[in-house]
């Protein structure tokens, strides 16, 4: 799976975003993390292989969330669906 690592000073938490390259909400989420110097990894689902699509969907659903994007996974367990600034801030303690 093609994960893009975006470096940042704040690497207290392990942050993974599943996004869609054409989605404005996903773009906003990435920008919000970068603006807050948060280090994160990102996978653009629409640019991944069909096989990876399925793996991503299963990963999200195994955590009890719907396959809707952006999905932000913090430390492998906290799942946030959509650009919910308050929830992201809380999970990342920013």
């Amino acid at each position, binding site marked *: 799976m093609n994960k893009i690592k975006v470096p940042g000073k704040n690497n207290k938490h392990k942050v993974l975003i599943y996004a*869609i*390259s*054409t*989605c*404005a*909400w*996903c*773009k*906003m989420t990435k920008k919000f993390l970068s603006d807050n110097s948060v280090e994160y990894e990102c996978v653009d*689902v*629409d640019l991944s*292989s*069909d*096989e990876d*699509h*399925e793996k991503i*969907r*299963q990963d999200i*659903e*195994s955590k*009890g*969330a*719907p*396959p*809707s*994007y952006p999905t932000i996974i913090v430390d492998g367990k906290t799942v946030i*669906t*959509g*650009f*919910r600034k308050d929830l992201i801030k809380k999970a990342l303690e920013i």
Partner: protein
Amino acid sequence: MTLDKVRQRAESDAKTYGYYLNPDADFLRDLLEGLKKNEERYGYPSCPCRVASGKLELDRDIICPCDYRDPDVAEFGTCYCALYIRKDVLEGKTPIAPVPERRPQEKQVRAYAVAPEVGVEKPPEAAKAVSPEPSQVKKRLWYCRQCGYVVYREDPPYVCPICKAKREMFAEIVVSASASG
């Protein structure tokens, strides 16, 4: 397809049905760019915020304006992407917030499962314990009492796309079938 054409198409569609486009110029441009990109890579402008399969028969419901726009705007004030918005949202009376996915799970799964032999070992029930569900609204027949335009959807449009009469001019068509004889 130029970005201007994509913009004009969205503007014209919004005007026809009494919606507005997102007033945030950068956000709007991102969405329109996304529609343009999808049209280039799939051959049709599928929703920029959803995963498309690239197969028309599986993606038909998410071609913008998608099948879920009208009930989403009615319930949340914006469509799933927040491309189309309601008047009170434009006026700042209702905030723009993420809209939960209304597209039925089975349609999403079908789009993902285009790759052969995947998702077989997982029981479909495992995927059910999710998110707040948008309300399920039944489609009905409506007619414009001013011009006679007939539409089949959850609620009548905000304006009649033909004669521009307001929503209040729409009435439901109640079809009764008798089973006598």
